[in-house]
Structures are given as C-alpha cells and as structure tokens.
C-alpha cells in the first residue's frame, strides 16, 4: 500500500506493539510542524549529503516535545521540562559535528526554560530551535502562558488575558541568535525553507511556528489555520499594522561557540607543553 513518504523516519512499531497513530489530538499543529521538519531534514539528506546519523533531536516536556523520542527514527533525547537546550549544548560539546534540532513548545522554551533560551542564543551554539507556539499550555488544560495574546479567554483568564505576550523572535534576536524567523502552520513551504536555512546555518537558529490548538480554542483546525492567516502579515508590510509579522527577521552569521571553545583547548594545551 502507498505510504506517506515521511513514515520512513518514524518508528511505526515498538516493543509494546504499534506506536502510531500519534498521541496528539485531531488537527494539532505540532504534528504539522513535525511533518514540515521531516520534509526539511529529508531534503537536506537527499540534496546536501548530510547523513541521517548526524541528526539529533532533543526535546523537553509538552505536546510538541512528546513527538521526538517517542516516534522518530533518529537519535533523540527526551529531557526535563524546559531543559532541552542545556542537554543539546552537552550533546554538541561531545560531538560538534552533529546537527542538533531542539523541538520545543512555547511553554517549554519561553516559560520554564526562558533562562536557558536566552543564554543558548547568547553563546550562539550551533543548534536549531523549532518552537511550536500555540499560545497556551495545551497539555495541562489550556491555561494562560507567557505567549498568550492580549485579551484571549483561557480557563485561568475567563474575562480575558491582561498581560502582553512575549515576542520570542525579538527576544532571540536581542539575545544573539544568528538566524531568526517566524511562520505559521498555514505557511508550509516557507516553514520548510526556513527550517532548512536554520539547520544549514552554523550558529544558533530560532524558528517560531505559530500553531493551533483545536481542543482548547474550541474551533475546528481549518477555522484556526484560516485565523492564523488573518492575524499575521508579511514583515515587509508590517510597519503600520497591528498584526503579527511573519518572515525572516534576522540573519547575521557570527563566530560559533564550540569553535571558540576548541581554540581555547588548543591554547591551553600549548601553554602546558
């Protein structure tokens, strides 16, 4: 039977029987982003000669983080809540040739892992952070998160959220990431291109993907994807607009941290001998 081409990167069978279908709710944006990521990784394996063994997926806790080590047929790690970036740093230091992809959610990256988030980008470590941002804590019941938009109604803000949302792209750019872009699940080809560019970039890359949560936003997936198209605007036209800009925000390659670290090791060895 004809099979989805990306199923070759998925472990369909495990020791306890069938692993698929995914544990996600119907129409979840995290599944779409996983599909986009696998398309980008597949293109890199076929076109750039990067080996499948070179990719490592690291994730924390959350709906989106659930996808990597449970289903992917790549080397992967499932770490503590918010601590995916320190683990990724350790993996990279052990073998700087690896292509590390941190697959994370907004709660994992911006809320509990906020401090690790800024310091990973400050060091410009050679990792690609893919952040599935649905603007709420999906796994625990849809509560308000630091990325929830103003006046959004959630179970913990029944009359509307009074706090301004975190702009993760601005945060990553300011902290020192060398590649930053934002897309939504309604922009499949742009997202795949951005992920490919992020993985190819030698340095810290941050790709935020605005996503939908049909269960907690109480709408159908298609309505939410169309809404995402409506609330976003291309960065070129975003000057006098209240909408969320999407596109490539920042691309400025600068020296990467592990290279500097190895040069320091060489310097220390020379001074000893």
């Amino acid at each position: 039977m004809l099979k989805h081409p990306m199923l070759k990167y998925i472990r369909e069978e495990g020791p306890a029987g069938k692993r698929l279908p995914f544990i996600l709710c119907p129409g979840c944006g995290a599944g779409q982003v996983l599909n986009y990521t696998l398309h980008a990784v597949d293109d890199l394996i076929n076109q750039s000669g990067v080996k499948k063994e070179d990719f490592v997926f690291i994730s924390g806790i959350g709906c989106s983080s659930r996808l990597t080590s449970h289903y992917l047929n790549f080397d992967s790690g499932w770490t503590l809540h918010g601590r995916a970036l320190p683990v990724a740093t350790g993996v990279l230091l052990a073998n700087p040739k690896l292509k590390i992809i941190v697959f994370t959610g907004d709660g994992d990256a911006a809320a509990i892992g906020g401090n690790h988030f800024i310091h990973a980008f400050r060091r410009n470590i050679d990792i690609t952070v893919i952040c599935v941002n649905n603007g709420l804590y999906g796994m625990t019941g849809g509560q308000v998160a630091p990325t929830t938009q103003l006046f959004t109604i959630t179970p913990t803000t029944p009359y509307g959220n009074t706090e301004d949302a975190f702009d993760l792209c601005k945060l990553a750019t300011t902290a020192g990431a060398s590649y930053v872009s934002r897309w939504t699940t309604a922009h499949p080809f742009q997202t795949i291109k951005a992920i490919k560019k992020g993985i190819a970039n030698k340095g810290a890359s941050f790709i935020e993907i605005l996503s939908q949560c049909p269960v907690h936003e109480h709408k159908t997936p298609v309505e939410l994807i169309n809404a995402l198209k409506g609330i976003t605007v291309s960065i070129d036209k975003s000057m006098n607009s209240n909408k969320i800009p999407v596109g490539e925000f920042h691309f400025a390659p600068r020296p990467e941290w592990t290279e500097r670290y190895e040069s320091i090791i060489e310097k220390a060895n020379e001074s000893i001998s």
Partner: protein
Amino acid sequence: MIEIVINPDYCKGCNICVAFCPRKVLQTSNNINSKGYMLPEAVNLDVCTQCMLCEIVCPDLAIAVTPK
C-alpha cells in the same frame, strides 16, 4: 494513474487536507474509521496535479499520493 491513499488507522479526520487542496480533489465524506473519525475521500482524481500539499500539511502522516 494517480492514486491517493488515506490510511484509516492513522487519519483523525481533521480535514486540513480538504481545506488545503487547491483543486478540490479531496472532499469530506461519511466514511467512519474504527475510532469514529470521519475520513476524507479522493473524489476527482483526474484534476489532481500531484502538488503534494495534502502530504505536506497532514499532521498524522496519514495520506499518500503517487509520487511524480
């Protein structure tokens, strides 16, 4: 001959593929799988251009189109 296969075990009937299909090849249907989800259905295979958009946007890797 173009073939579009929807895996009834993996599909959760979110109908994102139906919304994205530019030629309206995929349509909602009343076919129900073992979990009670309403599966989409490929009705008009003659106009399919194999753009693969349904494959790219599927959150559950449930749909497959004959490769070009």
